[in-house]
C-alpha cells in the first residue's frame, strides 16, 4: 500500500450532525495550504473506490450464489476504513468485525484473496476455513475479524499491551459498530485500556442500526460511543464518518497520541450503510427517504468531487479507477476458476502442531 505523506493532523473538531454537515466547505478549499495533500488524497480516494466496487461485486456474487454463507457490506462506510488505513503505519494492527471487508482491503489485502474467502475457495485468505466474517491477514496487520459482538475490544487491548510491554511503537485499532457499545465487553475494554494507558484506538462506526433495530431505540444516550467516553476518562470525539479527510485527521491524531504514550482514544464516526445488514436484507425497517438523504452524502461521490476542487485532474482519477476495475475483474475470474478447498484441510491448524489430535 502506498503510504500517505506524514502530514501532521490538525485538531479535529467534532463533526456537525451529518444532516447539517452537507459539504459545507465546498468550493472554499485551497490546494496550497492543505494539510493532507494531493498524494494522500488520491490514496484515500483509491481505497474508497476499491472498497466500493469490491463490495458491490461481493453483493452481485452473493445474489449469484457464488458468495456463500453470509456477507456484511460496508457500502456507505468506506471513508472510515480509508481514513484510518491511510493514517496507519505498516506495523499497526487492525481488529475488525464480521463487517470487515473494507478494513481488510484498506490495509492492502488483495481483492482476490478477500473475494476468494467470501466465495469459500482455496485461493481465499484463509482457504475458506474462516469465511467472510473472520477475514485475517497477519502479514497486512489484519489481526482478525470477530463475529461475536464485543470480543475484539479486549483482544485489541492485549495487542496494545504487548506493544507497550515490549516497547514496540505500533498501535492497535479496533473497529466496531454502534450496537457494540451496549455489550459488556465494550465497558471492560475501555476501562482497561485507560487504566493501563494502552496504545489502542477504538473506532465506533455508528451507522445508526444494529441488525434491523435503530440504535436510538435501545441506547440511553444520543451518541452511543462518544457519550460514554467520559465514563472512561476519555474525551468525547465525534467525526463525520462520510468524510475521509475528517476521519484521516482524527485518525492521525489518535494514532500519534497512542504511539507517543498518550493512551487510548474512543472515536465515534457518524455514517450510514447503504446496503442491508447482511446477505440480501432489503432494509425494510428504514424510514422512507432516509437512505436517499444519506446517498446525497455518499462518501465516495463527495470525495471524488473534492478531488476536483483540490485541482486533481479527472484523468488521474480515471486511471486509478481503471486499474482497480481491471484488478477486480481479474480477481473475480481467478476466484471463479479457483478450486474448492481440499478436504484434508478440514482438520488442519486446530493446534500449533498443525493437526487436531486431542488424544494419543
Amino acid at each position, binding site marked *: 500500500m502506498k503510504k500517505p505523506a506524514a502530514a501532521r493532523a490538525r485538531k479535529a473538531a467534532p463533526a456537525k450532525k451529518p444532516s447539517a454537515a452537507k459539504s459545507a466547505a465546498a468550493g472554499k478549499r485551497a490546494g496550497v495550504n492543505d494539510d493532507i495533500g494531493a498524494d494522500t488524497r488520491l490514496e484515500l480516494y483509491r481505497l474508497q473506490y476499491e472498497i466500493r466496487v469490491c463490495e458491490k461485486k461481493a453483493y452481485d456474487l452473493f445474489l449469484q450464489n457464488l458468495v456463500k454463507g453470509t456477507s456484511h457490506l460496508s457500502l456507505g462506510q468506506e471513508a472510515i476504513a480509508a481514513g484510518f488505513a491511510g493514517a496507519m503505519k505498516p506495523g499497526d494492527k487492525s481488529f475488525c468485525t464480521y463487517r470487515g471487508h473494507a478494513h481488510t482491503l484498506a490495509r492492502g489485502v488483495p481483492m482476490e484473496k478477500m473475494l476468494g474467502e467470501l466465495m469459500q475457495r482455496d485461493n481465499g485468505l484463509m482457504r475458506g476455513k474462516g*469465511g467472510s466474517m473472520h477475514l485475517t491477514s497477519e502479514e497486512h496487520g489484519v489481526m482478525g475479524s470477530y*463475529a461475536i459482538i464485543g470480543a475484539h475490544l479486549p483482544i485489541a487491548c492485549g495487542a496494545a499491551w504487548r506493544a507497550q510491554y515490549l516497547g514496540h511503537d505500533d498501535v492497535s485499532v479496533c473497529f466496531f459498530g454502534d450496537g457494540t457499545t*451496549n455489550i459488556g465487553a465494550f465497558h471492560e475494554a475501555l476501562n482497561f485500556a485507560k487504566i493501563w494507558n494502552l496504545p489502542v484506538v477504538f473506532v465506533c462506526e455508528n451507522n445508526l442500526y444494529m441488525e434491523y433495530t435503530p440504535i436510538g431505540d435501545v441506547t440511553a444516550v444520543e451518541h452511543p460511543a462518544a457519550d460514554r467516553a467520559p465514563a472512561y476518562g476519555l474525551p468525547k470525539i465525534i467525526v463525520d464518518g462520510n468524510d475521509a479527510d475528517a476521519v484521516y485527521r482524527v485518525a492521525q491524531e489518535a494514532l500519534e497520541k497512542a504511539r507517543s504514550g498518550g493512551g487510548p482514544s474512543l472515536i465515534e464516526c457518524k455514517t450510514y450503510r447503504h446496503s442491508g445488514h447482511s446477505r440480501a436484507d432489503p432494509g425494510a425497517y428504514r424510514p422512507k427517504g432516509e437512505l436517499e438523504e444519506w446517498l446525497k452524502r455518499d462518501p465516495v461521490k463527495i470525495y471524488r468531487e473534492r478531488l476536483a476542487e483540490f485541482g486533481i485532474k479527472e484523468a488521474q482519477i480515471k486511471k486509478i479507477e481503471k486499474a482497480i476495475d481491471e484488478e477486480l475483474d481479474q480477481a473475480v475470474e481467478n476466484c471463479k476458476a479457483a478450486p474448492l478447498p481440499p478436504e484434508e484441510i478440514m482438520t488442519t491448524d486446530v493446534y500449533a502442531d498443525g493437526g487436531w489430535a486431542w488424544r494419543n
Partner: protein
Amino acid sequence: MAELTYREAVARGIAQEMRRDENVVFLGEDVAKAGGVFKATVGLYDEFGPLRVRDTPISEQAILGAAMGAAMTGLKPIAEIMFSDFLAVCFDFIANEFPKSRYMSNGQTKCPLVVRTGNGAGSRFGAQHSQSVENWAMMIPGLKVVAPSSPADVIGLLAASVRDPDPVIFFEHKSLYAVKGEVPDGEILDTLGTAKILRAGKDATIIALALMVPRALEAADILARDHGIDCEVIDVRSLVPLDTQTILGSVSRTGRLFTVEENPRLCGWGAEIASIAADECFYDLDGPIVRITTPHIPLPAADNLEDIVLPTPQRIVQKIVQSMN
C-alpha cells in the same frame, strides 16, 4: 392439519402460549419489529404489541438477567439468544444463576423461563455461528434442555417448556427452519422428558437429536435396504429430563447402541448416554457402543468442508456397517 415450516412453528408455538397466558412475555435482539433474524418470530409484535414483544440492545447478559428477574417475580419470559454460540457471552446466567437459585434458597426462588436459541451448522457461517452446544446446557444441574427435530415437536415442546416451572434451554436448529411438516390444528402440548421411537428396529439402536434425526432415519433406510441391518431410531428430543427408559429399553432389545451427534465429540450428549448404557445395560450389549460425531474441531465455513465434517447418512451407514460386521 396444516403444513408448517419449523420456522413458522416457532412463531405459532410462542403465539399459542402468549394467547393462553398474559404473563408470557418475549424479548431479544431484533425479535419484535423485524420478526427475528431467522424470521421465526414474525407476527408476534403485531399481535401482542410492544409491551409483550420487546427488542433489546445487544446485551445478552441483560436479556437473560432481565428474564430471570421477571421469572423470579411472576412473569414467564421467553428470551431469544440469536445464535447459540452467543450463550458464551451470557453463560453466567445459564451456568450459575438460573439453575442454582432455587437450590441455594432452599426452594424459595423460582425461575420459570425459556431461552430459545438458534443452534447448529449448515449455513456456512463459520466457527462462531454454527456450533451445536446442547452439552453446554446439559452439563449444568438445574436446567432442562430441549431440542426438537420437527415442526410439530417445536410447538408441543415449546408449549411444554413455557408451562414448565423450571428454566428450559430450547435449541432450535437453524438448518431445520425451512423444513416443513404436518402439524395438527388447535392447541398442541407435548411432554418434556419423552424420547420418541421414530422407526422400530431389532438389530441396533440409533439415537439422534435435531438435525441428526432425519439423517439417522435416512441412514436406517439405507442400512435396511442395502445391508439388511434393521435399526431402531430414537429422537431424544429432551436431554434433560432424559428419557433413559425408552433409550435403555431399546438398547436392551437391540443389543447395540449408536449415537449420532452434531456436536464436536468431547463431552457431547452421546457420551453421557453411552456411559449410562455401558453401566446399566452392559450385559445386554452385543458389541461396542459407537458415537458418530462431528470431529473435535472448530467448524469450517466452506460449504464443501462443512458438509463433510457433520455426520452424514453415508457416514452413519458406513460406521454402523463397519461396527456390525
